[in-house]
């Protein structure tokens, strides 16, 4: 299969959807020049009435996308960083996400939001390194975070076709990673987890940018004689509960390796799910390896201490396999 970089695959998916459906628009800051690369070449191909550079008015253009969607368009809104979700928060979670329900099921709001450089990357510091998917799923917004080039294309295309608001997190750490991408109209349905590696002794549920580290950890543990399964939820809401539960019921041991803040983070939700619905199968406490609850610090040694690390994952897995406390 042909190999593409994550960002290239995503761009290909976006271009294909714009060709396929004239109601697909791109709205955001610097999307014509394409600061982030996701929208490169689009204004040249589709013209200025499909690709809109906006003022620095995130709440405004987020609300505008909602209105355009209600009126029959299918906007793709690019946010340059996670923090922009804070600025547009009411328009995202209190308007776009709630309107259909509050209206009693009238209309459709097919907006796709893409955070085109999501999470931490060396030295971006406290306001440019957040990973806010727990806030979105808490408010009921459909949310995906592809971990591979193939899913980057497939899930973006699915998100654009979805008739509801969908938030797509594209982790900075993965944008340059290469991976196989099927030819043709490759769409990855929402709500299906991906088993990145099969195993029988322990399940690691790894999120987005952490999947590669989780796989390396599984190799290390394999060398130590443990068979570790790595599951990538990739669709966070809808969540493939059955798929995740099946893995945990099989292995009886689980560590959640999550890139969001710890308290009320995504790992908390998964731990709560397992502690309830996989209870009978669990043979060890449900462990979380997450970010610390501070803004991501600038200095590399501090940053490394705050972000979820492969070493801590390894520790947690070993402790879990012993069934002992770390």
């Amino acid at each position: 299969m042909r190999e593409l970089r994550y960002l290239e695959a995503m761009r290909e998916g976006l271009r294909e959807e714009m060709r396929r459906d004239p109601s697909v628009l791109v709205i955001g800051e610097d999307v014509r020049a394409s600061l982030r690369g996701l929208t490169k070449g689009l204004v040249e191909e589709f013209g200025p009435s499909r690709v809109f550079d906006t003022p620095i008015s995130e709440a405004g253009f987020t609300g505008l996308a909602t209105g355009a969607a209600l009126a029959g368009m299918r906007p793709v809104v690019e946010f340059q960083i996670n923090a922009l979700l804070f600025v547009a928060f009411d328009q995202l979670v209190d308007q776009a996400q709630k309107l259909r329900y509050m209206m009693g099921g009238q209309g459709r709001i097919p907006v796709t939001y893409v955070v085109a450089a999501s999470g931490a990357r060396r030295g971006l510091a406290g306001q440019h390194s957040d990973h806010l998917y727990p806030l979105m799923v808490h408010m009921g917004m459909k949310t995906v975070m592809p971990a591979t080039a193939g899913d980057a294309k497939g899930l973006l295309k699915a998100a654009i076709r979805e008739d509801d608001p969908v938030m797509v997190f594209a982790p900075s750490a993965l944008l340059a990673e290469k991976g196989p991408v099927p030819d043709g109209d490759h769409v990855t349905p929402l709500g299906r987890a991906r088993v990145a590696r099969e195993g029988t002794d322990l399940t690691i549920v790894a999120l987005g940018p952490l999947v590669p580290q989780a796989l390396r950890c599984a190799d290390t543990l394999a060398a130590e004689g443990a068979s570790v399964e790595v599951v990538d939820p990739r669709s966070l809401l809808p969540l493939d509960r059955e798929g995740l539960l099946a893995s945990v019921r099989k292995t009886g041991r689980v560590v959640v390796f999550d890139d969001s803040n710890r308290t009320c983070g995504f790992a908390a939700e998964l731990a709560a799910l397992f502690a309830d619905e996989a209870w009978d199968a669990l043979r060890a406490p449900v462990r979380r390896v997450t970010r610390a609850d501070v803004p991501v610090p600038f200095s590399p040694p501090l940053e490394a201490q705050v972000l979820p690390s492969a070493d801590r994952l390894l520790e947690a897995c070993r402790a879990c396999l012993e069934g002992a406390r770390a």
Partner: protein
Amino acid sequence: MGHPSQDQLIDFYRTMRLIRRFEERVVELVNRNEIPGVTHEYVGEEAVATGVCRALRPDDVITSTHRGHGHILAKGGDPRRMMAELMGKATGYNRGRGGSMHIADLALGIYGANGIVGAGAPIACGAAMAARLRGEDRVAVAFFGDGATNQGVVHEAMNLAAIWTLPVVFVCENNGYAISASIRDMSPLERLADRAAAYRMPGESVDGMDVLAVHAAASAAVARARAGGGPTFLECRTYRFVGHFTAEKALGIRYRSEEEVEAWRRRDPLVTYPAWLREQGVVDPARVDEEVEALLDEAVAFARQSPLPAPEEALDGMYAVPYPGLPARGW
């Protein structure tokens, strides 16, 4: 648009009367606990919604506010389904999910009342943008209050409409207060329409107690927008004769003088306009009043007879595309 026809003149009265009496009935029903929650009545401001919405086509779009009943009725909303919604019935516009602050009818271009001050403004811009991109000449009106002019997103929306010359009319219903806060204290401007200059858009200020003045100004703004001339900021100076919401009396908060209220009540469009109609010999308002009462009797009866929604439906309608286990239930 030129001068309103006889039929239009009568229709203006019918609409204003419908709004006034609808609201008066809402207050009764709230006090009788037939309507739960909070309702914000439009009493006193009828000429604004009427003058503006009567300058619109059925396929034009409006975004409304927490004080939305008047806008929705003037845009053609069905009093029966509105009343049913206010009572939380399954036959209501929102199947009981929304209540007063969220009534919507997309088919009539009513993109919803909104519980968040100012939030409708950018949504109206989006509807206008879609119309433009689809080659339709529809116009969008964003209603908001004087208090909303200090909400950042409203500025962002006005700037977006201005730079993209979107067919939007920003209708500021300046009733002088945001709950207890006088706009005199909350903005340094004498004339809120002066905010328009910051976006190089025309800013007009009209007497919001005069339905003909509002209709004329709105018609001009709508025509300009429809013709591709871009957005307008239209300030309508008006007043609410009642409390911020039905429950205000109970709170016993005071922020307006009796004299001020009285002075405005003397300009009540439901008194001055029918008097003028009578002078002109256009119509006997009494006949219209009867029609309106009949309509409202029927609306209330319809709402009362309608069933409540079934609890099991509570999780339906959130997503156009549902999935197993979504939305998550609480147990």
